[in-house]
Every structure is written in C-alpha cells, then in structure tokens.
C-alpha cells in the first residue's frame, strides 16, 4: 500500500471527483476514513455466511436485478437482499461517494461500471476480494472485463457484463442508397458522405462528445492515454492512438457529417427507428436496448465488426460493469458470497441473459446456444457470433483514470466543443487533457510532472 500521506490525498481526490457532480468540494475536505473492518476472510467464510444468512443491501439499476435477487433468495433462504435502485450510473456514484464520505449509508454491494471502479478502489472504499478465493474465478471471464475489476494485485469485484464494440447498421438504409458495409474508417467516412449527400436528413451516426465513446474509440485505435502508478499519473491524449482516432474521426466532425442529436434522448431513439441515424459504434449490450426500445427498427438492423484503421480486426470495450463489495459492509463475507453467486452461478446468469444482457463469462459467450441465436429483430442474423468474436479482439493494457467519473463529466465541455464547432478534435482532446492535469494536481495527484 501507499504511505499514509499520499494515501490520504488520494482518498481526497476520489472523493472530490464524484462529489463535484453535486456536492462540490465541501465534502472532500471532511473525508473521514471509511474503511470499517479489515480485508480478511476465506472461501469457507463465504459458505458459512451464506448458510448463516443475514441482510444485505444491494444498489443496482440493472434491469435483471429484481429477478436475480429473487432467485438468490430462493437458493439461500436465510439471506435477505434489499435491492435499491439508487439511480442510473453517475447518479448512483454520487450517492455512493456521498455515503462513503459521510461514513455511513453505503450499501453492502453495489453495481459499478468498469470506468468508475478505479475511483472507488483508489479511495480505499472497496473490499479486496482476493482472500475469498476470487482469484480462482479469473478463468471464467473474458480478459477485458476481468482486467477492469482486478488490478494492482487486488480483486475489487466480479464482472457482470461486457461491451466489446461492434458496428450496428441499418441495412434498410444502406440498401436503399446502395451503400456497402464499411470495414475500414476510410470506407466509413465515404459511406457517411454518400448517405448524407443522398439524404440530407440522414447521418452515418449521432455523436457530439460522449465520454464513453471517446475513450473507447481511443482504446480501439491503440491509445493508452492514462497511466497510473500509485499517485503518479501520466495523461497523454495526443499519443499515437489518440491522434489516429482524432485524425480519422475529424473528417466526419469537420465535414459536418454527424448528427448532433444527444445520445439516449427521445430524438435519438427516434432516429434509430426512422433510419436518420444509420449506424452505431457501440457495445455488444446494444441489441437488448434496440429490441426493447426501438420497435420501429425491427428487421432493419444488422451487426458488423467495427471498422478498422488498417484492416486488422481490433475493437474495444464500451460500457459494462460489475458488482463490488463496500468496506462499510458489516457482513463482507456474505456480501462477497452474493457477488460470487450473482456473477458466476448459472441460475443468475441465465436471468441476466434473458434480460438481454451481454455476458462477461466465457462459458456463456462460447456456448453453442448463445452463438446460434438468430433474433428476428436482426433479420435472423447470428449476431452473437460477430459480438463474441469482437470480445476476443480487445487490446489489453487500457486503464482509466482514478478520477474518471469527473473526467467523463467534462468531456462535453472540452471534446464536445470540437463537435459543436465542427473543428479539430485534437484541440478538444488537448483541452480535456489540460483540465484533467490541472484537476489531478489540485487533488493531490502528481500529474504529468
């Protein structure tokens, strides 16, 4: 571990990071140690705890949460899990961070997306699950998600889902304008030009500076802009990969070839249904969303591998997360048992799959049943073959910042401005970097020094 001084400052950072979202800096100053009990326990403790029973609070917004908890309580009748939807992604992180700062009120188990895990891990708020024998579970998960929960020699949670990126495209629109499915970004830009020329209301995709998209695209291009070593951080959003992405994507930004519709807005869903947004470069969990929320697009959409820069298949993870155990938990062994069941027991995973989720467990990714699925929505295409294939082409070595929640929150103000003014993305990335360096240094990290 770190020596006392830097550790305290690091804790302050992570606190300040999330709290700026609503609480501002006031909380960071009064951070009290949240570490309750120590990280000790064993596999046997889990079994004993599950047998003895008890009460757990579980924060999650995942659609499968309710059914999974019901199934768990049936398997372990002595355990009572209270499922709380404390908000979707950042909303939950803010509440979680507040509870950690306050020293009470945090749940035993929480759903946290991969990009936010380092933040909570570094602020010493999560239980290291290695001693419960979670290291043995590594083989069950695909490499990308596993490296997102297990780093710095500790295991902070178990992956629930994954989001290897693929290109979702509206085949009806492509056919209508005689556009070939792009396999490289050069072809992708050409398709964008062709489509927009043929129909001025239609765009190849909608993008205006989504943080997750930005980091995933850099990841795919081979960039590693964030490096953390203890409290020393290096940020280089002009490394080779970042530039590769920015230079290529610039042609769409500067050419005004992207719809500015904000992701996840009603207009965006509308665009996915009526063909005015023709492709989506996003995580493998998207089919579930399309099927349940874009009924108009049924039969139109297909899945293809991500376009590449040089023809070598490569993609990145986008979205997805897992469950972690909070140090505030008074029954950490039981909480660990719940997390283990949730993300490795077949009963739980089948509930998860039914809800349209994309798994992180290799057994399920490679099961013939899963691969053979041919959903009507996608015109009978065996989409999982494409998506599972993508999960094998994720470059390793990607890291998020220990204050990524804050970092993501300022992307619209920096990178987003390039989209807004149809100007060079590199300038937006540089601006983002400058702000991240300044913020990190203010918070007690040593950034780019």
């Amino acid at each position, binding site marked *: 571990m770190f020596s006392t001084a830097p550790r305290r400052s690091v804790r302050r950072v992570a606190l300040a990071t999330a709290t700026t979202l*609503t*609480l*501002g800096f*006031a*909380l960071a100053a*009064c951070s009290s140690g949240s570490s309750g009990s120590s990280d000790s326990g064993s596999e046997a403790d889990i079994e004993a705890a599950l047998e003895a029973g008890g009460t757990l609070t579980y*924060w999650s*917004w*995942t*659609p*499968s949460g309710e059914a999974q908890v019901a199934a768990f309580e049936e398997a372990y009748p002595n355990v009572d899990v209270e499922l*709380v*939807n*404390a*908000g*979707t*992604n950042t*909303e939950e992180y*803010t*509440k979680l961070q*507040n*509870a950690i*700062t*306050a*020293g*009470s*009120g945090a749940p035993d188990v929480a759903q946290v*997306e991969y990009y936010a895990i380092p933040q909570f891990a570094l602020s010493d708020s999560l239980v290291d699950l290695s001693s419960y024998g979670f290291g043995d579970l590594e083989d069950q998960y695909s490499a990308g998600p596993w490296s997102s929960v297990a780093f710095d020699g500790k295991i902070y949670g178990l992956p629930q*889902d994954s*989001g290897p990126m693929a290109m979702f495209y509206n085949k009806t629109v492509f056919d209508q304008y005689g556009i070939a499915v792009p396999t490289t970004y050069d072809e992708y830009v050409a398709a964008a030009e062709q489509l927009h020329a043929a129909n001025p209301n239609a765009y190849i995709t909608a993008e205006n500076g989504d943080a997750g998209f930005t980091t995933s695209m850099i990841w795919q291009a081979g960039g590693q802009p964030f490096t953390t070593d203890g409290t020393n951080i290096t940020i280089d959003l002009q490394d080779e990969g970042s530039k590769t992405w920015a230079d290529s994507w610039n042609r769409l930004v500067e050419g005004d070839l992207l719809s500015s519709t904000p*992701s*996840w*807005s*009603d207009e965006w*869903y*509308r665009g996915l*249904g*009526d063909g005015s947004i023709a492709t989506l470069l996003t*995580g493998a*969990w998207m089919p*579930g*969303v399309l099927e*349940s*929320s874009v*009924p*108009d697009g049924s039969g139109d959409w297909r899945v293809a591998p991500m376009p590449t820069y040089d023809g070598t298949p490569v993609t990145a993870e986008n*979205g*997805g*997360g897992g469950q972690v155990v909070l140090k505030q938990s008074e029954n950490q062994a039981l909480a660990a048992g719940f997390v283990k069941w949730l993300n490795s027991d077949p009963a739980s995973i089948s509930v998860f799959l039914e*809800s*349209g*989720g994309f798994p992180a467990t290799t057994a399920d990714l490679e099961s013939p049943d899963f691969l053979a699925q041919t959903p009507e929505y996608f015109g009978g295409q065996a989409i999982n073959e494409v998506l599972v294939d993508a999960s094998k082409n994720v470059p390793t070595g990607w890291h998020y910042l220990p204050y990524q929640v804050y970092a993501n929150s300022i992307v619209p103000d920096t990178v987003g401005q390039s989209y807004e003014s149809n100007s060079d993305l590199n300038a937006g990335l540089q601006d983002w970097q400058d702000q991240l360096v300044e913020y990190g240094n203010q918070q007690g990290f040593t950034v780019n020094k």
Partner: protein
Amino acid sequence: MSAVTSPKRPAFARGTKPTHKARQRKSIVLTIVMAIFVIYSVVPLVWLIVNASKDQADLFSSFGLWFGKDFNLFQNIYETLTYRDGIFVQWFGNTLLYVVVGAGGATLLATIAGYGLAKYNFPGRRAVFAVVLGAVAIPGTALAVPTFLMFSQLGLTNTPWAVILPSLISPFGLYLIWTYATDAVPTEILEAARMDGASEFRTFFTISLRLLAPGIVTVLLFAVVATWNNYFLPLIMLSEPTWYPLTVGLSQWSAQATGVGAQPIFNLVITGALLTIVPIVIAFLILQRYWQSGLSAGSVKQ
C-alpha cells in the same frame, strides 16, 4: 393592490367614456408583450399535455406539438400509476407528506416568529432582524452540503426527516409575515385586547391570526411551491427510492433511458410530469388572489 392603481383612476373616471385613443396606444405594445409572454409560458404546457397523450412509439414518430396516431393519455396515466408496483403513487404520497408537514410547519413557524418580531419589543430584535435578512440571501442549495454532513452524523439521512426538517425553515416567509404584521395588525387593537384582559395567546389566535390570513396564505403558497419543487435536497439526502419525492423520482425515470440496459420510459416521464403539476396548478388557481395581495404587502405605506 387597489392602493397602487388608484392614483391614476380619476383621470379616466371623469368622462363617461374612457379616452379611447390614449388607451389603445398603450395596449398595443402591452398586448404584444403579453402575447409573447403567454406563448412563452403556455407552449411548454401545451407540449406537455399533447405529448402525455402519446405512447412511446408515437413520441418517437410524431410531430411534437400535435397529437399522435392514438390518444393514449388514460393508458399512460394508468401505466404511470402502476409502473414498478405503483412507485409513482408512493412518490406522490411522499411529496404530499413533505408538503403538508414541511410547508405547513414552515408557515406555522414563520407566522408565530414573524408576528412576535413585529409586535413585541425585546432586546436583540435588531440582531434577529439582521440574521433573518441575511438568511433570505443564502440560497438553500448552498446549505445543502453542510446540512447533508450534519444529518448523516445524526443518522437522519435516508429518512423523511432529512427532507422535512430543512423545509421547516423559511426566512423569507418569516420576513414576509413580519412586514405584513407590522401593517395589518394595528398595535391599538392589541392594546385594546390586552385592556380587556385577553391573554397574549388568545389575542394571537382570535384576532391577529385572522388579520394575518392573507399574509399566511401567501407564505403557505410560497412554502408549498418550494417544497413541491424541492429537488436538490432530497436528491442528496435520500438514496432509498421509497422515500423519493416526485421530482427526484421523475428524474430517475428519465435517467433510466441511458447506458447499458437502458429502459426508456419517456411517455411515463412526461405523463408523470403532467400529473405532478396538476395539484400545484390547482392550488395556484384557487389561492392566486392571496398571492397577489401578499406580494404587494408592505409595498404601500398606509
């Protein structure tokens, strides 16, 4: 109110007909300004009503300011009220609880304190005056963080008290009652009552309270609106959805449309928003005349 407009009246009242020309010249500009304001404030409301009648598919495919293929208002209302085992009804009940206890209590405290400060002389009155005036200037948002930390140490976060207790404090209401009481309750009446042997409490409840009624209703309205719309405080205080008020609940429904496992329910968010404003609109329509008289309270010296 009448005191403000009366000085101008004699000019018009003299002739049998009002001077038509002068009036019209004035009203053209005013009418245009009014019309712009009306459009500005009514269009979002119209949008809300129109779109509350659409199901999600219609929302995505029809023009925003006109009705869609089907009229689904009642279906939407039904779904809003029953979604996730009727959590919306629970939020509605929570909001009512916060409004009744919080805004009601705030009004009661503001009335008692404001009246006391207006009608009794005691040492430190000026200091209290300065503190209250200063408190009016501090936005509640600025106090949310310290309040949160304090409440979490007291173990009150995630309970209804976390929302109700801060709502009980209304410096602005206190100030309003204070100025209102100074004018509306003549000291002579109080003296007369004292001469007749009425206790101070009796004087307050039988005489002063009635004289203060318009002011109290105004404060009540302010407090009700503030509590009904309260968002930030419950957002940071509560993590348990079963204690959410409508504002925080609706925002959670709205956020549900994002990210992995997104479940957009825009039609329910819109219908929920419509249902949320109905009570407050009714309260306004019924009590608006008090609101007006309260706003001008103390503005004219009698």
